């Protein structure tokens, strides 16, 4: 993966927000950018590329990428359902929704559907406890989930992908 011109400009903009010599501060935002550009996950080449862009060592990138739960170090579906399983969601039906998603997609947590479109993972509280159960999909939250809503989300994204 290599960034296109727009993405490189964004990397530059991000790095300029910190004092001289502190461009490493841009690591998290640049990794977010790289993950999107690389199809929703970070492989070693991508991380090495980010290291070279920010003039830091490869290991500095690996140790950060492995610390934060939003960075996927294995391939995931084009659409990743990150379903909250923490207390407030748990008492409002998160387990049932997770079971429904598993059945609906026909894959276990961490596996990707055969068409490469979907996968799901359980995550911890996302700050939507009053609108439970909920999941995160890309940059957005899907809240007050029901089986019908899950069906609609899956259909919508199948269509988006042209299936």
């Amino acid at each position, binding site marked *: 993966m290599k960034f296109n011109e727009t993405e490189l400009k964004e990397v530059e903009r991000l790095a300029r927000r910190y*004092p001289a010599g502190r461009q490493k501060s841009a690591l998290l935002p640049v990794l977010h950018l790289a993950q999107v550009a690389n199809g929703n996950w970070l492989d070693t080449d991508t991380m090495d590329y980010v290291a070279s862009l920010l003039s830091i060592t490869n290991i500095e990138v690996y140790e950060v990428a492995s610390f*934060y739960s*939003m960075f996927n170090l294995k391939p995931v579906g084009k659409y990743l359902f990150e379903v909250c399983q*923490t*207390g407030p969601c*748990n*008492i*409002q039906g998160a387990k049932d929704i997770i079971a429904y998603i598993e059945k609906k997609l026909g894959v276990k947590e961490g596996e990707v559907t055969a068409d490469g479109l979907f996968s799901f993972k359980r995550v911890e509280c996302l700050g939507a406890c009053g609108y439970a159960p909920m999941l995160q999909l890309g940059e957005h939250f899907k809240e007050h989930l029901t089986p019908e809503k899950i069906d609609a989300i899956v259909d919508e994204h199948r269509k988006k992908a042209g299936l």
Partner: protein
Amino acid sequence: MSTKLLLDKAHIAGIETFEIYRKEGGYRAAEKALKSMTPDEITEEVKKSGLRGRGGAGFPTGMKWSFLAKPEGVPRYLVCNADESEPGTFKDRFLMEKIPHLLVEGLIVSSFALGANTAYIYIRGEYAWIVHILEKAIAEAKNNGFLGKNILGTGFDLEIHVQRGAGAYICGEETALLESLEGKRGNPRIKPPFPAVKGLYGCPTVVNNVESIAAAVPIVNMTGDEYAKIGLGRSTGTKLISASGNINKPGVYEIVLGLSVEEFLMSDEYCGGMKNGKKLKACVPGGSSVPILPHDLLFKTANGETRLMTYESLSDGGFATGSMLGSGGFIVYDEDQCIVENTYNFTRFYRHESCGQCSPCREGTGWMEKLLWRLDNGQGKMEDIDLLWDIQRKIEGNTICPLGDAASWPVAAAIRHFREEFEWHVTHPKEAMERNYGLRKNIYVAPTTAGA
């Protein structure tokens, strides 16, 4: 009638734009502060207001500001903590989504008071869309001369940058946040030195919660003395509470501190009472880290006094019979909920979020999770309950950062108040897999509806 100081305009259509926010009286505090007050005068007003940090610890904000070291020629930073990851807490999100300019204005006022020319908003990575909302508000403020160089012709410069985290509760701890902002793993630092002396890039730094920074706006507008008249005793002003769980109206409410817990939970103006007419079992009033309160200690303290939504009243009775206001994450449990399962759930959360630096936290949370899983799944032994108690005692106070305490307190409180439910899981392993224990035996008092 309830007074609102932060969200009073949040419902107005278009309030997220500079134009409408300004038309509604926005940026008056920024003008007043920059044009007619000195930095020390602003800090003095914040001290007088009695504002206490809204991120969870409740440290007086004015005092924190006055501790900021000011060595010659060294930049100072203001960092806004928008990591909001404490289970049950979703109030900062509401403020930033609905009325982003309030935070921007608060940052201008606070940065001026602190002499900071750069402020960073560190926002949890999952709030991706809010990054765009904030960046738009910042750009608008800049276009209108409220950010950038020589703001309002006063010679004060300020840039605000939004930094996105990437999924780590620990990055809400202020020193872990600073590490993360420097592009590293979120490992909390050993204190001292405190951020006020050595913070971001080794420079003096103030870290404040979103709501604390936003509160600087009404404080400057109305004066600290007037702000301090709102609320009760040392719990001054208003507080955003995010309510979730088995209630009729989950959501974010701005309350005047001093409201009774019963009114907050039962009245239609706030939570609207228990959902589906169920009975109240327990409540975690201030985010997952604070002790759970059984129903019979929620509306009244152990002394029989009315329990209020204040720092003091919620902690009345200490950990034996009280809890904490914490982050304002108010989680309500009805009679159908299982305390053992909930304790297991929270403990799994802390084990997952432990950064791993200290053995008591890293290992202790793992052991507690295993024991609680066994108990919750009908495989527990009586000794496990005592072992759990023992482990949490050994974590608390023995770690670099307060996450260790935060992991211990929920376990301690659950055992303290619901021991018989844990024991029932041991004595009735099969039944415990099929049904929940229900309410505590014999001591249930029906919640009355809120006072007239």
